[in-house]
């Protein structure tokens, strides 16, 4: 039997499709008996779809450092 903390971590891994088969199985069992974690999993999955839908972009650290250097020159 796994703890809720562990279940949450596995749940997060599944959001990035990085949970192993055994982990998924453990999570499934846990969700059968734990209402709180079921609710969390549902919400977490919803959040993942939102993130995908939002089409998020961000600059890489490399780009940011380059920007900073150029901005420093102007300061």
């Amino acid at each position, binding site marked *: 039997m796994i703890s809720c903390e562990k279940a949450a971590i596995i749940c*997060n891994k599944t959001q990035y499709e990085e949970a192993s088969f055994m982990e998924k199985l453990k999570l499934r069992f846990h969700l059968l008996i734990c209402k709180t974690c079921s609710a969390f999993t549902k*919400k*977490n999955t919803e959040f993942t779809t939102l993130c995908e839908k*939002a089409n998020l972009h961000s600059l890489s650290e490399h780009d940011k450092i380059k920007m900073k250097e150029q901005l420093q020159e102007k300061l």
Partner: protein
Amino acid sequence: MAALKFTEQQENFEVIKSNSVTFDTDSKKMAPHQLNPDAWIDLYADYLFNFAVARVSDAEIAKDLVQETFFAGLKSAKNYKGDAAERTWLIAILKRKVIDHYRKINSNKGKAEVRMSYSSSSDSEGDWLEEQVADPFSQLENSPIENEELGMAIQDCISKLPKKQALVFKMKTIQGISTEDICNELGINPSNLWVMIHRSRTALMGCLNENWF
């Protein structure tokens, strides 16, 4: 005597304290917002970049526009009155930059001529008005706008996260870097990473909760 001195000192101290308080409120009234260009890129680069990408749909151009925005902001920093928050002010500059960008790419004479064809399907016979009426039940028009707002809302929430959590979340979720690479780059172990991901996700869900769930 000593007691008297002490109360005197205390009074003095009181005066100084009250002075400093009034000074504080005064300075707040004078400039409620201040510019801090050193922190601009850490604080606003991603937010502005999202805003720009949604409008020019090209990452390279968007990057340039954001950079130009920072330069322009620096140049006109002395005109900043402090009425608006720093980010709002920068967004206003970026908006002008986006408009300038479209002006520039449309300035060639050939491109200035606008050819319109009202119906996209060329094989339909005649100009039937019925074919051009908008579908009143269509939801398609709103969804890109909604998604953009959602994107800005998420960015807003990300910017409220602790720096390291925000960084890990962005690398993992937005840039899709593998767990191994992130761990190597930041010098953390995987379980550490997952705990940070968990915290940032929980915080973001809480932050988005009011509007988007």
